[in-house]
């Protein structure tokens, strides 16, 4: 505990714990929202460069104020509630989409000390929270009372339920290797004197790929964005939304992307651990790995055409799930031999 906080602690008495926790939540959510805003700019810039364009460069130097301009624009816009919609569910759906994307951050460790709730079943909690995100999409699609929105919701529900299984099995191998469900313990399990070679990405490389691809599918990002599919169903589940209600879906999607990037780096790339033994472990490594994974997300979007719906289902059920089940057995056997070095 930091010394200078003690007077405040004494002043508040029993109210100290909730207040301090609220402060910690603010410290996580505030920068997260900032990161989401600038991730949108990074996305437009990176995709622009990949397509030999410039990207946004009018608002502020290098377009750095563009996210603020977008935010102000979305705040000023009218929220239109369709008269045929189910009003309560229509309004609550964006909240349902954003809520789990933020709640999952409670157990994410940033370095060895910085974590809001160091719970034993952290991995399970993350899986539970990310599986709730689909409700925002489904409720939005149904409450809009529109055909396009409804089709988007159905596609999204089927897709997320399918890819969640592969994702869960990929994480099962991680928790077998780490022998813990605690995210901090999982990172500490990858500590060793060989830097990068101690990370789980080496023995679990197929699982790393599957987790990353399932993460892209889980966040409804291109090339798995059939729930939006603007060339087929306009904008899918959020076609009827405008203004801040639409912005909440947007925030949820990008917060989920950052979450998946954090989880990938925690589970497979050693979290805050240094990739080389002679440099110290630090939170900087964590952010560098997250930035790398986020760059992959943007790269995928700029490179791949959208999956056709039936091929997407085939990839999830007939390719990923069998591979993950086989790899669970392989890792289980491997761990019984002396050749398991992790």
């Amino acid at each position, binding site marked *: 505990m930091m010394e200078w906080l003690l007077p405040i602690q004494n002043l508040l008495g029993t109210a100290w714990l909730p207040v301090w926790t609220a402060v910690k939540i603010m410290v996580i959510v505030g920068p997260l929202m900032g990161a989401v805003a600038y991730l949108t700019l990074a996305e437009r810039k990176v995709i622009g460069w990949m397509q030999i364009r410039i990207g946004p460069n009018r608002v502020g130097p290098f377009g750095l104020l563009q996210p603020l301009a977008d935010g102000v624009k979305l705040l000023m816009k009218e929220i239109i509630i369709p008269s045929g919609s189910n009003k309560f569910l229509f309004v609550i759906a964006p909240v349902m989409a954003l809520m789990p994307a933020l709640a999952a951050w409670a157990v994410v460790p940033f370095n060895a000390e910085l974590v809001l709730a160091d719970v034993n079943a952290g991995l399970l909690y993350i899986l539970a929270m990310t599986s709730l995100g689909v409700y925002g999409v*489904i409720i939005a699609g149904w409450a809009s009372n529109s055909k396009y929105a409804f089709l988007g919701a159905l596609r999204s529900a089927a897709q997320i339920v399918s890819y969640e299984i592969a994702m869960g099995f990929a994480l099962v191998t991680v928790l077998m290797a780490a022998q813990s469900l605690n995210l901090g313990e999982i990172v500490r399990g990858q500590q060793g004197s060989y830097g990068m070679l101690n990370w789980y990405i080496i023995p679990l490389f197929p699982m790393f790929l599957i987790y990353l691809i399932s993460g892209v599918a889980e966040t409804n990002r291109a090339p798995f964005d059939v729930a939006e599919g603007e060339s087929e169903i306009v904008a899918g589940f959020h076609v009827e939304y405008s203004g801040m209600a639409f912005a909440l879906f947007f925030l949820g999607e990008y917060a989920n992307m950052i979450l998946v990037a954090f989880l990938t780096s925690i589970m497979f790339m050693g979290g805050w651990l240094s990739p080389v033994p002679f440099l110290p472990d630090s939170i900087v490594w964590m952010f560098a790995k997250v930035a790398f994974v986020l760059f992959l997300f943007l790269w995928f979007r700029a490179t791949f055409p959208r999956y056709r719906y039936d091929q997407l289902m085939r990839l999830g059920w007939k390719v990923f799930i069998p591979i993950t089940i086989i790899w669970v057995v392989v890792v289980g056997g491997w761990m019984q031999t002396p050749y398991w070095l992790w």
Partner: protein
Amino acid sequence: MSFFDVVFYLFATITVMAGMGVVVARNPVHAALFLVLAFCSAAGIWMLLEAEFLAITLVLVYVGAVMVLFLFVVMMLDINLVKLREGFWRWFPFGALLAGLMVFEMIWVLGSREIADVSSAVVHAADYSNTKELGRLIYTDYVYPFEIAAVILLVAMVAAIALTLRRRPGVKTQNIAEQVKAKKADRLRIVSMPSEPKV
């Protein structure tokens, strides 16, 4: 009343209210969403009992997967609400009897002294891992019942798929393996021909 009790009664009230909502709601989608709320608050109560594995699994499996598929189906139904309520009073005595029976059973079981003594919760240390303990029990003491239950579920799943599997003749489907194996030479013939002289 301690903080623990306040939280318990809060969750219990929400669970009961949501349960009522499932039965009372006219719209089946609303009923399904009330069921989601009931599951979430029940998970909260289990969390209070330090059964964090069960609590999170309840959310993960029932809310995250089962109810999503439920909603999926319910949303696609075209339900005539008037027809649905037609037989209400005719079936009411039967439903009331069933409900009364269940209330009686629950009071009988939960109110008995043996159960009440067992349920006086044991508070564990902070490093106690419910997941680990549960896993240890399932894979040592109860390994045969657990494996048999798993096999029964697998058989049920295979049976369900086999029941719905029907082969319709004359359906055109893609053979993905064949598509992937296709080479350029199978589809494309490059003809080398001299350029024609200018007229």
